[in-house]
């Protein structure tokens, strides 16, 4: 493997000696040209990590290495990075061109070259015609693009994005995330992207670092963190999930080339099922994760083999989706159904659930004591 663009080694930040660290011995490697999302709830340490990489905050311990050079204590203005802030942080007293040119001016680029590069950067974000405008005359989405142009025009070593989409309305947010991703792929800028929005992370990132309590719970591709969550937190935070406490019985065979096995598992009150998980889980208790849309729901028995019979407790219809909560014994399972123009299922109707063994995933970490749902 080639040398990583960014390595973070045991990075730690403690705001006060008597507090838990905000970031706790964090390790991460980012490949050149990748967009890595730091994803987690507020207070998980993602923004602190980004600010340490930017140099806006001093780490308590650990090191940050970019292109093989340690920059842990390099001053902010010597790191050559580009950053887009949640508030955009455009200079209110400068027009659009002056904003974008600021970083080039600091690098003592000639006037003529500044002009050309500013124009190219503004064209890249499709705002070439707004160069002379004052920034406060622009819409949120336009300000966002100017901020992106300002960060990218200096050809930064790393592009740092701090919740750049959270001040935009829902429709615009989706457009901008496609656009930011396209620009990032075109410029091949290695990017760290802080977000609390799992959809954003799944849609945009090459790798996702799911953070919680100052730690990375899992670092992997979007499909890895979604399909193969390592912990309860990851499974719960990314997408929706049903959790069932399962006693893992015998291995029933190799499931795939990734070294996973099929198991027989037993869930209290529901019975015995097939499941998939990493090898060597037999004989202990693990949590079974089933995504709502992987549950087959039928309103009539007999469609699937040995379905679980239950009662519909809740129906949530949002036009393109139909979610139901089904009570089976003392378990409530969430499932998704296809919507049709016909009658909606009603509360109290009988429902029959089944799932494929490959869609019931055993978390590798030992089952943890029940936590309060977030």
């Amino acid at each position, binding site marked *: 493997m080639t040398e990583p663009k960014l390595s973070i080694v045991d990075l730690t930040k403690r705001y006060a000696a008597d507090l838990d660290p905000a970031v706790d011995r964090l390790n991460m490697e980012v490949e050149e040209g990748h967009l890595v999302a730091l994803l987690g709830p507020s207070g998980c340490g993602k923004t602190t990590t980004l600010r340490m990489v*930017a*140099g*806006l905050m001093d780490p308590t311990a650990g090191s940050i290495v970019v292109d093989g050079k340690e920059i842990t204590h390099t001053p*902010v*203005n*010597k*790191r*050559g*990075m*580009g*950053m887009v*802030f*949640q*508030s955009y*942080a*455009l*200079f*209110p*007293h400068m027009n659009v061109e002056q904003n974008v040119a*600021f*970083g080039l001016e*600091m*690098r003592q680029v000639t006037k003529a070259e500044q002009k050309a590069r500013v124009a190219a950067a503004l064209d890249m974000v499709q705002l070439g015609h707004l160069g002379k405008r004052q920034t406060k005359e622009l819409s949120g989405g336009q300000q966002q693009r100017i901020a992106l142009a*300002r960060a990218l025009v*200096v050809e930064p070593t790393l592009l*740092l994005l701090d919740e750049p989409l959270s001040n935009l309305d829902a429709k615009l947010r989706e457009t901008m995330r496609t656009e930011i991703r396209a620009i990032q792929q075109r410029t091949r800028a290695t990017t760290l992207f802080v977000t609390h929005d799992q959809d954003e992370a799944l849609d945009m990132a090459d790798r996702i670092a799911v953070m919680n309590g100052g730690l990375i719970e899992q670092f992997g591709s979007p499909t890895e963190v979604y399909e193969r969550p390592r912990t309860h937190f990851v499974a719960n935070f990314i997408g929706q999930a049903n959790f069932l406490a399962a006693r893992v019985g015998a291995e029933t065979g190799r499931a795939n080339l990734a070294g996973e096995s099929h198991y027989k598992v037993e869930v209290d009150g529901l019975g015995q099922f097939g499941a998939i998980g990493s090898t060597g889980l037999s004989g202990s208790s693990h949590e079974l994760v089933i995504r709502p849309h992987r549950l087959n729901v039928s309103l009539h028995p007999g469609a699937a083999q040995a379905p679980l019979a239950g009662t519909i407790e809740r129906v949530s219809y949002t036009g393109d989706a139909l979610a139901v909560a089904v009570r089976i014994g003392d378990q409530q399972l969430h499932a998704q159904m296809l919507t049709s123009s016909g009658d909606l299922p009603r509360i109290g109707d009988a429902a029959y659930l089944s799932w494929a063994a490959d869609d019931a995933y055993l978390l590798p970490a030992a089952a943890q004591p029940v936590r309060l749902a977030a």
Partner: protein
Amino acid sequence: MSSANASSAKIFKPRFNPAKPAFGVLVFLLYLFLLAPLLIVFVVSFASNQYLSFPPEGLTLKWYEMLPQESTFMEGMKVSLIVAVIVTLIVLVLGVPAALALDRFEFRAKAAVQSFFLSPLLIPSIVLALGMVLLFGPLELNNTYAGIIIGHVAITIPFVIRTTLMSLATTDTSCEAAARILGADSWTVFRRVTLPIIQPGVIAGGVIAFIVSFDEAVISLFVAESGLPTLPVQVLRYVENSADAAVAALSVILILISLAVVVVVERVMGLRKALR
């Protein structure tokens, strides 16, 4: 429920609301009350009365013609202008960084430092003035420009700190972080980003400091009455000795100067925005 009330209120709303003209009259009377002294001074300055009194017996420009010959006024004006200009420069140079430090840094006794800087607003100036005379005596600062200037700096710095802090409170600190990341060193960040953003507050503070210093009588009277009288001190002396309307004419000139300063600053940099 409240919306139902509101809509019924709309339906039965009388076409003529007597509260509106009543409010207008009230506002007019309030302004009249506030501006009456100024108006009277203005009228008196054109009155031909022998002594400072109201109402006027006739109209004249003689008090205005007298002013250039009154050397004490001209001397006082010179002293006051020199003091006010230097005081304004000093309080800006001291006050703006002080406000920045108070806004941006956490340090021990921050609240105490903040109160200390603002305390001259709360202490009667006569107490301050007395203290200064006693302190300046052994330092040989009485009756010097340095003495007056130090006194005025002490009472005007709270204004600059206050207005600058107000501007800082509404600025986005990310702008400074953005500039640093783009390669600017601390001084460049201050010069190119922070200062332009807080400029309205700084200008407002400077204007207030200038006017307060130019206008200040108590400290000037105590510290430099005999040796270096400022314009307010000269006015005071003049009123003690003579009772003609030349001071009224002078007052009108001073009002016009202050007005001119405010109008020019408003036109050039937008004081209204600064004092918002």
